[in-house]
């Protein structure tokens, strides 16, 4: 299992993402200007401030050469995980529904939150238990998930909401307490919390590991079936 972690100018969580991926498999860096995905089995678009987040968060990064390849990879069914700024980039690129708006508090929020696993029927939560609580940190100013009502009810109906902030935990005003959503095909997932910062007992809870472990299990078990 080989992960690829994208590095944009302004990325800042790609090293932790590499570290998290390497707890369950191999991982390589993917440079934003390259078009070579190096044969990876899954792509992680990490957190940070890609291209300075000029204009809107994630708006410029979606035009990076590597993102064209990521879009093709996703269209072919490849697993793509977007974390925080990566989530924003995937929404701007149209690979995920919805958008991220400024937190209702207008403040930068940096704290641990409790998440609830809404469904285990996805490559990203398959190794979790239903309604399992994951303790994972958030750190963002623009994390209020929004989708128009009609789109939202379709997403809820088809189980595209994979993670919610636990009752009373919603830190940013996200609609329906949504912390992470996947696309219709269920192979692209984005979330505002940072699972890559919660994989090592040295630094706290390890709730984030379940996301990476789920991806590994999906890829390697899927391969074993072939």
């Amino acid at each position, binding site marked *: 299992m080989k992960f690829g972690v994208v590095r944009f100018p302004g990325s800042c969580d790609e090293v932790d993402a590499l570290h998290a991926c390497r707890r369950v498999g191999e991982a390589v860096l993917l440079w934003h200007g390259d078009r070579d995905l190096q044969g990876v089995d899954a792509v992680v678009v990490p957190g940070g401030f890609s291209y300075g987040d000029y*204009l809107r968060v994630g*708006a410029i990064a979606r035009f990076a050469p590597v993102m064209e390849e990521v879009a093709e990879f996703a269209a072919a069914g490849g697993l793509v995980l977007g974390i925080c700024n990566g989530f924003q980039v995937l929404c701007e690129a149209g690979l995920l529904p919805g*958008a991220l708006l*400024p*937190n*209702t508090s*207008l403040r930068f929020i940096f704290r641990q939150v409790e998440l609830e696993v809404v469904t285990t029927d996805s490559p990203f939560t398959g190794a979790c238990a239903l309604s399992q609580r994951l303790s994972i940190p958030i750190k963002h100013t623009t994390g209020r998930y*929004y989708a128009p009502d009609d789109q939202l009810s379709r997403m809820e109906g088809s189980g595209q909401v994979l993670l919610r902030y636990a009752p009373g935990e919603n830190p940013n*005003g996200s609609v329906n307490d949504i912390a992470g959503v996947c696309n219709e095909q269920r192979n692209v997932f984005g979330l505002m919390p940072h699972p890559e910062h919660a994989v090592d007992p040295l630094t706290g809870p390890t709730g984030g590991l379940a996301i990476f472990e789920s991806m590994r299990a999906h890829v390697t078990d899927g391969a074993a079936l072939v």
Partner: protein
Amino acid sequence: MMRARVLVKPKAGILDPQGQAVERALPALGFTGVRNVHVGRLIELDVEDPARLPEMCQRLLTNPLIEDYEIVEADAPAGSNGGGAGATAR
């Protein structure tokens, strides 16, 4: 070349905490009687083909899911005087 201004604001109906914060701050300075404050962005640009502006707005300058925009045409490119404004709305 045409000078254009793209006015971007949060889509109607979407919570705009920035606008609310400004609206709450004004009375503190004695400016009462102000309502429906919204904070957006102004993008100025000189364009050769103004007909392509809506597409630019849809694909990059705004996120149509969360933002409304208005294209305001000014007569003169940057650096020259003038700039009467006629508006094409959306």
